[in-house]
């Protein structure tokens, strides 16, 4: 419990900044929607004129951008990107920082097992992620509600947030697993972020090329896309199962490797 509280406190400031960041992200996104919709131009038509590849890169395939919810669906991709970067960095740093800051000679000579330390730290990361998710949820409900024009959006937001939460947890444990396996703790966060960006790029490449749709299992960014999840689509069971299996596997890797390896002291 003491480790939990201490870690919670040390991540408080960064969590506040991230939460403000996500609020601003939603706000700026929806302000742009206001500009589009009030200009009277049909965005859909504008978008249809764009080359397909550009639409894929910008993330607005198959969404009705005239509706606030459709526009939000496009924005969701960026929210997910932000949330997962937060999660993967948090997962990696929270494990690696004892070695990075050389405090492992303090913490790990205390009468606690390494497993207990990891458990406390992962719970803190999870708490941070839940709060980040709630911050996004609340920001979205408030801001999207302003522009939705009577359209029922809260249900859509809720299901998108559920999808985002699964991805957050998945990337958090990817981060922690990398930090647990890697012997150089300083680079854990950057390696984890690098892997995340590679997966993101892979998801765009898949968007551009229908023939390689089969490899969409390799990148979590393809698991729950707004266009599939929204408007009654829901979360695809197979991808939920895959996510859970991956989360569990990365958890096991985190614990097993961190327990077995020499600490960097």
């Amino acid at each position, binding site marked *: 419990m003491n480790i939990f509280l201490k870690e919670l406190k040390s991540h408080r400031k960064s969590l506040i900044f991230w939460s403000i960041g996500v609020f601003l992200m939603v706000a700026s996104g929806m302000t742009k929607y206001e500009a589009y919709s009030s200009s009277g131009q049909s965005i859909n038509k504008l978008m249809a004129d764009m080359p397909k590849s550009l639409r894929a890169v910008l993330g607005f395939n198959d969404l009705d951008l005239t509706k606030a919810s459709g526009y939000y669906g496009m924005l969701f991709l960026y929210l997910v990107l932000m949330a997962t970067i937060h999660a993967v960095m948090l997962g990696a740093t929270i494990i690696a920082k004892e070695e990075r*800051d050389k405090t492992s000679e303090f913490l790990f000579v205390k009468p606690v097992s390494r497993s207990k330390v990891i458990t406390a730290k992962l719970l803190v990361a999870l708490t941070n992620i839940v709060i980040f998710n709630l911050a996004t949820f609340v920001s979205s409900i408030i801001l999207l509600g302003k522009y939705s024009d009577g359209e029922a959006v809260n249900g859509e937001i809720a299901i998108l947030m559920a999808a985002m939460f699964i991805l957050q947890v998945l990337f958090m444990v990817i981060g922690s697993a990398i930090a647990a396996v890697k012997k150089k703790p300083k680079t854990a966060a950057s390696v984890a972020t690098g892997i995340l960006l590679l997966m993101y790029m892979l998801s765009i490449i898949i968007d551009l090329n229908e023939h390689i749709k089969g490899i969409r299992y390799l990148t979590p960014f393809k698991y729950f896309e707004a266009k599939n999840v929204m408007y009654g689509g829901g979360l695809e069971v197979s991808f939920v199962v895959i996510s859970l299996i991956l989360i569990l596997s990365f958890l096991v890797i985190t614990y097993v490797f961190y327990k077995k390896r020499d600490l960097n002291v």
Partner: protein
Amino acid sequence: MNVIEIKNLTKTYGKARGISDVSFNVEQGEIFGFIGPNGAGKSTTIRTLLSLIYPTSGSATIFGKDCIQFAPEIKKEIGYLPSEIFYYDNMKVKDLLKYSASFYKKDCSKRMKELAKMMDLDLNKKIDDLSLGNKKKVGIVQGLLHEPKLIILDEPTSGLDPLMQQKFFELLEEENKKGATILFSSHILSEVQRLCNRVAIIKEGKIVTVEKISTLQENNYKKFKIETNSTLDKDYFQIDGVNKLDVHNNVTSFLFKGNINTVMKKIADIEIANLWIEEPDLEEIFIHYYEKEV
């Protein structure tokens, strides 16, 4: 009873040397010195004992329990002062010590104040703002806070001024009188000489000798310096028990351990101009252990 038992402990880091085949015991209630030059493997041994790193082979027990399998349990009664002190920067000294104390199921607030007063440490300062010496004090208080039965100190005096060092040693002697066993690693010999009952000397990852300080200082080592009228054959004194033989012009010097009569007879056979026989100080004995065999 042995508080620490180390059996054939080996730790290799790839090609780099770690420690090999280290074995020694630390008995209940003693202050045990662990001496060696930088990079000899002192910290590696200590970190293995604390299961921060794991041995390649061999094992160690503390309080009769395996130091890896029972690590969390054993550590309830261990206080550790690492050679380099790093703490969570954004904390006040007081908060760090409270955090440290929270791991032990004891009320340490009174002792915290006592120790801080004794070591002249300001509890309300931020750790960031402390000098190296003051950080070391935080480490000392932190290590002794929960009144551990085994105190492990890795080069504890670096950064402390002589006055503080004095107080720190008094503190350790006090803890020792109360029953604490102390493992004290150092490369500074005078410290060891004053405090410790026994020492283990480690060199290049291997234990050279484990002896009582008193034995080390006993008269079985003599320092000879002989001045002759003519240049002496370089190997004239190359006999059993002679160490650090040095022939320079007409002056021959060496350390001798063994039956003094054999040397005296050799000396009697030659024409000498002058002769000095002295007790070597510990420093010289250690340097002899430190130096690589040619």
